[in-house]
């Protein structure tokens, strides 16, 4: 997030898009609720009638993939009506003209025709967001910065990024923020809500194929060499590695022969599970390090038992870049060990097996010692140490030991200097509904479960609340195949099929079905594809897969009749 979580409740307008905030980030949604109760406007742009829409001033409901029209049309209106913050644009940004040109033809009328959303609603959304207009009450920013404009905050999540044009959509949201000058101030910004407890930290510390800790590109020679030197090696690989989806393709192609999987379950979470399973089965060696034997672990040759987050120390970095300390609550069961101790032992032994005698540090006495080393490698963590994290933790960038951390980014100046506008094109999802697969499947989460369900499905209460998977179907689509609420239904895509229970209602519009990916009995990712990834982020298009529904009961009756 560019901004801090606690700033949200003071926002004048909040735009939520592609985030089921109430279910995926419940505690953060409390900030939104509090802002709305104080009079803020809430715009929700989402194909589903998610919980947050009950609190929304406006719910714009495009079909999956059509939202690009709405964002572009909003930008068009903001420019046309003179609601753009021209002073901000002139002083702080560049390449505005190219962007302006790109939205010239996407009038609200064009967007309305494409999405079915009335022009007036698009115009209203543009106005509320750009000017930060409240529904009632007084802005706490009314006098503060001498501007009439309220503060607007964009919250987004995987509904924006899990798309074949995800990067472009994020650029588009950044364009909107710059257009209204809604960035670099409290309660504004472009705020991605990160899904897992330490997904932010895993990225920050180099758990990505293209960057070293602190987002230093692997091909940036001076930076890479500096890290290599700190680690006591001559150099490090300079070529960008493979992303998780590319890895399974490389396994199938025989280029990857062994996998080390720590606390992940790609069989459930990666697109086209059938292919992922084949890929993993083709390997010479798989080691899985986890707290449970999950679906991926079943294909592993060696299983290493790990401690859970309640059984270890160290740090997590949350979605607002805040690095916070963990404290062990319990002792790990049996012989399970914290992951860092396992990696450390394995790395040491691996060096020996490779017959190397290098001076690379693999053994540490504590997680604090590891963080101290990481701080010397990742400049954004430069001032972070466990000692300093007592209390409220620190928000990076925190480059030096006396730096107080950074509550919100881009204040006064963008990290890159001038904020860059990106021209945008209308790009639609790779799979478009046709006669054979007329519906769009969108995947996501439910409140009571988490990812591949290995944890939550072993929690008595959570499992009681939602014990099995279900697909959300609009009554129109259900009626077409004689499907009843609670009835069994087959969801079929070009990759495969899953069978689950139908939950019929208007949470999804006609033509759209929703299935969460927590259920191994109905694994949503059997259906999804990895054919067209986002060209830059390499994210699969989980939010738009075309499918058809079949009513197994109906087929049986037909067959019975034929007999």
């Amino acid at each position, binding site marked *: 997030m560019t901004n801090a979580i606690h700033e949200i409740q003071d926002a004048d307008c909040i735009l939520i898009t592609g985030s089921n905030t109430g279910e995926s*980030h419940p505690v953060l949604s409390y900030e939104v609720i509090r802002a709305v109760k104080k009079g803020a406007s809430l715009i929700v742009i989402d194909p589903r009638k998610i919980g947050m829409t009950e609190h929304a001033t406006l719910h714009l409901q495009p079909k999956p993939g059509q939202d690009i029209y709405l964002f572009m049309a909003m930008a068009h209106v903001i420019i046309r009506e003179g609601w753009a913050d021209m002073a901000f644009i002139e002083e702080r940004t560049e390449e505005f003209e190219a962007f302006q040109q790109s939205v010239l033809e996407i009038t609200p009328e064009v967007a309305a025709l494409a999405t079915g959303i009335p022009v007036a609603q698009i115009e209203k959304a543009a106005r509320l967001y750009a000017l930060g207009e409240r529904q009632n009450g007084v802005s706490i920013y009314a006098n503060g910065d001498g501007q009439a404009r309220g503060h607007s905050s964009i919250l987004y999540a995987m509904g924006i990024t899990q798309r074949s044009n995800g990067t472009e959509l994020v650029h588009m949201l950044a364009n909107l923020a710059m257009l209204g000058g809604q960035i670099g101030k409290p309660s504004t910004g472009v705020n991605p809500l990160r899904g*897992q407890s330490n997904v932010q930290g895993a990225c920050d510390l180099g758990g990505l194929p293209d960057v070293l800790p602190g987002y230093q590109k692997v091909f940036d020679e001076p930076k890479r060499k500096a890290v290599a030197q700190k680690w006591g090696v001559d150099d490090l690989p300079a*070529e960008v590695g493979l992303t998780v989806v590319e890895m399974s393709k490389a*396994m199938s192609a025989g280029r990857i022969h062994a996998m080390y999987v720590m606390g992940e379950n790609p069989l459930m979470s990666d697109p086209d599970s059938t292919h992922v*399973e084949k890929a993993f089965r083709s390997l010479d060696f798989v080691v899985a390090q986890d707290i449970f034997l999950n679906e991926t672990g*079943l294909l592993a040759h060696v299983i290493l038992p790990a401690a859970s*987050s309640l059984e270890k120390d160290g740090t997590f970095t949350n979605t607002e870049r805040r690095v916070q300390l963990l404290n062990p609550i319990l002792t790990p069961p049996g012989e399970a060990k914290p992951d860092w101790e396992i990696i450390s032992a394995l790395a040491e032994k691996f060096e020996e*097996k490779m017959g190397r005698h290098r001076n690379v540090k693999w053994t540490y006495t504590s997680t604090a010692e590891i963080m101290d080393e990481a701080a010397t490698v990742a400049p954004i963590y430069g001032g972070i140490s466990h000692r300093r994290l007592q209390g409220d933790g620190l928000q990076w960038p925190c480059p030096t030991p006396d730096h107080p951390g950074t509550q919100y980014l881009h204040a006064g100046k963008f990290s890159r200097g001038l904020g860059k506008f990106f021209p945008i094109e209308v790009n639609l999802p790779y799979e478009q509904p046709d006669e054979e697969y007329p519906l769009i499947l969108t995947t996501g989460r439910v409140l009571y479960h988490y*990812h591949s369900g290995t944890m939550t499905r072993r929690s008595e209460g*959570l499992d009681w609340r939602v014990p099995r998977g279900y697909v959300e179907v609009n009554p129109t689509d259900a009626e077409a195949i004689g499907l009843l609420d609670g009835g069994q239904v087959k969801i079929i895509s070009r990759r495969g099929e899953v069978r689950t229970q139908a939950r019929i209602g208007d949470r999804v519009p006609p033509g759209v079905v929703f299935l969460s990916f927590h259920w191994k009995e109905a694994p949503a990712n059997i259906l999804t594809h990895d054919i067209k990834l986002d060209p830059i982020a390499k994210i699969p298009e989980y939010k738009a897969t075309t499918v058809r529904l079949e009513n197994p009961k109906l087929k049986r009756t037909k067959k019975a009749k034929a007999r």
Partner: protein
Amino acid sequence: MITLTINGKTIHANPGEKVLDVALRHGIDIPHLCHHKDLLPSGSCRMCLVQVEGAAKPQTSCGMTVQDGMVIETDTEDIEAMRRDLIDLFVSDHPLTCVTCDKNGSCNLQDYAYRYNISETSFDFELSRPKYYDDNPFYIRDYQYCIMCGKCVRVCDEVVGANAIDFSQRGFETIISTPFDVPLAESACVFCGNCVQICPTAALLPRSKIGKGREWEMSRKQTICGYCGVGCTVEYALKGDKIIYAQGTPDGTVNGEFLCVKGRFGWDFVTSPDRLTTPLVRKDLAYELGLTDEPWEMPQTPVFKGKPKLSNYIPVSWEQAIDITATKLADVVKQHGSDAVGGLTSARCTNEENYLFQKFMRAGVGTNSVDHCARL
């Protein structure tokens, strides 16, 4: 800036602030039961009465906006007598079963009964709402202990936005209820348990706590929740080495006292009997390495059709497991090169572990093919 006097002490406050909030911040303990700093004032418990100079009668301070020059007394004899009467009234329909009550030691009503030395009511005792609900695995509702402070209703509306409960019936029979008294699971309840957290009495209690120990027997430890990326602080109450219940804490950096259902109630997976407790080697590899005499072949049944089977593995020591893994990885690197190994690090492991994992992949194995589920 506004200047006022409370109990003879000069105090500065911001315009719009409430007298109770300002007093509490300055360490002036005005009794209160229905007040919460993150909720709108309701004035229903009347305990925060104060005397403002020039006013005819005492007024509640939770909803009173500070004004310049205000002179306030918080504990005059009259006011203390009124508060004593209020507690006397509260316990006229609240059973003082403190000895067996699970809230004993953390009950606000008990604290005030102690302060005002009330061991039984001087009124006729009559239960107004003897209703008990045990309709979900997360928390129970025992309305004989309810004092109608309405904090549960307000947190559900003002913070969570679920609006699952409200006041129903009227007069003496007034009770907190779901619409038409349906079970919580059929209501809009999201089981976040924030109502349980801020309930001043035993009307709402986590189920996991009932009969499991007294408050003063429990130790408390805080850590960061392991679920989503919000990073809430969770406090665990433990008896010995067992978690009894989890709750938010007022000093939680990101979340204050509030949590969601997963953070508050979803911790029990940690002690699941399914936890992996020893390193394991799959039987085919174990046979290849001479660890077992029985040949074995990995079944070809698709993973989603089968069931996780620990019987496919044999337990080994950590030394063996690490040795086998290091040997296998080194063999692949020697034979096919560094890029023939891929690594998936974890969004659920710590920064330190992620740092070390990618260091191993890059400086040890020698590949940049390290990734995690950031995109999934």
